[in-house]
């Protein structure tokens, strides 16, 4: 065997080790699309909230039915944003995996999903409990903290950079606890701006070269 072959062997070993333990097809563009969904959602929520307070000011009294309706609409909006963000994320990741001829649904993606979903489900149940007990102001920080922890947990099985995004989300959620009632702004920054910045950075770091290599 020549030197070149030995070097090739070492490169192969490294590639197999990486590919078998980390899900490397996660696309930066999924971060960008999720961020855009979040910003659109935040803008809509803000419009609804402003309209609600205008109605309150106009009538002069607190309207329980109106508040219940607002709450329901905001929850529905949050779910819609989540579905759109996850859908976009899956699409861009699937596209990247297909381009690189890698499977989307394999051991590594299952590991990422499991490890992200466990803290996320706990956070979801926790937030539902808060809503049930009328601690609405705590929902936004809770979502950010649990989402951040979920990312930190999942980062072991995908791009290591996800860990930093998770840390930032967690810190933002805790900061939000000290500025209650500003939850919407923290959400917009955490789920919107951070995702977009992270997505662009990841795209720049990992995918730009792939594109050049494939000459697309």
């Amino acid at each position, binding site marked *: 065997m020549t030197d070149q072959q030995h070097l090739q062997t070492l490169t192969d070993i490294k590639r197999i080790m990486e590919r*078998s*333990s980390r899900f490397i097809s996660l696309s930066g563009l999924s971060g960008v699309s999720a961020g855009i969904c979040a910003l659109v959602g935040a803008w809509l929520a803000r419009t609804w909230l402003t309209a609600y307070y205008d109605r309150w000011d106009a009538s002069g009294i607190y309207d329980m039915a109106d508040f219940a309706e607002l709450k329901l609409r905001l929850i529905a909006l949050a779910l819609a944003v989540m579905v759109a963000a996850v859908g976009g994320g899956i699409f861009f990741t699937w596209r990247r995996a297909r381009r690189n001829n890698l499977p989307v649904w394999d051991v590594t993606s299952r590991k990422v999903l499991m490890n992200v979903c466990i803290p996320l489900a706990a956070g979801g149940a926790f937030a539902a409990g808060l809503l049930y007990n009328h601690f609405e102001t705590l929902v936004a920080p809770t979502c950010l903290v649990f989402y951040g922890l979920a990312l930190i947990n999942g980062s072991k099985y995908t791009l290591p950079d996800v860990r930093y995004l998770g840390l930032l989300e967690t810190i933002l959620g805790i900061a939000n606890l000290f500025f209650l009632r500003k939850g919407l702004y923290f959400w917009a920054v955490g789920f919107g701006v951070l995702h977009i910045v992270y997505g662009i950075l990841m795209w720049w770091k990992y995918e730009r070269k792939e594109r050049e290599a494939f000459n697309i």
Partner: protein
Amino acid sequence: MNPIGNLNKIFESRIRLGVMSVLMVNDEVNFNDLKQMLEVTDGNLASHLNTLEENGYIKVYKGFIGRKTNTTYSITATGEKAFKGHLAALEHMIKFTK
């Protein structure tokens, strides 16, 4: 000293090398996942896994998920040592011939 003396003959096959690479970074991997990651056929993979097992480099656990067999593999301490030695020998060779 023979420069290739430390290279392990068992790891000359690319598939065996691949299996060891996967098992180095994963605690436990089942047959189908190995097959998918290494892009090989059942028979081919099975015979290479046998060789590795006979040499005590990997451990085999036969289990079931429902009625389907689920065989998982993990690396042994001997296997890990042998593989690391092989990698070191490869690196050593490349450095020396440069």
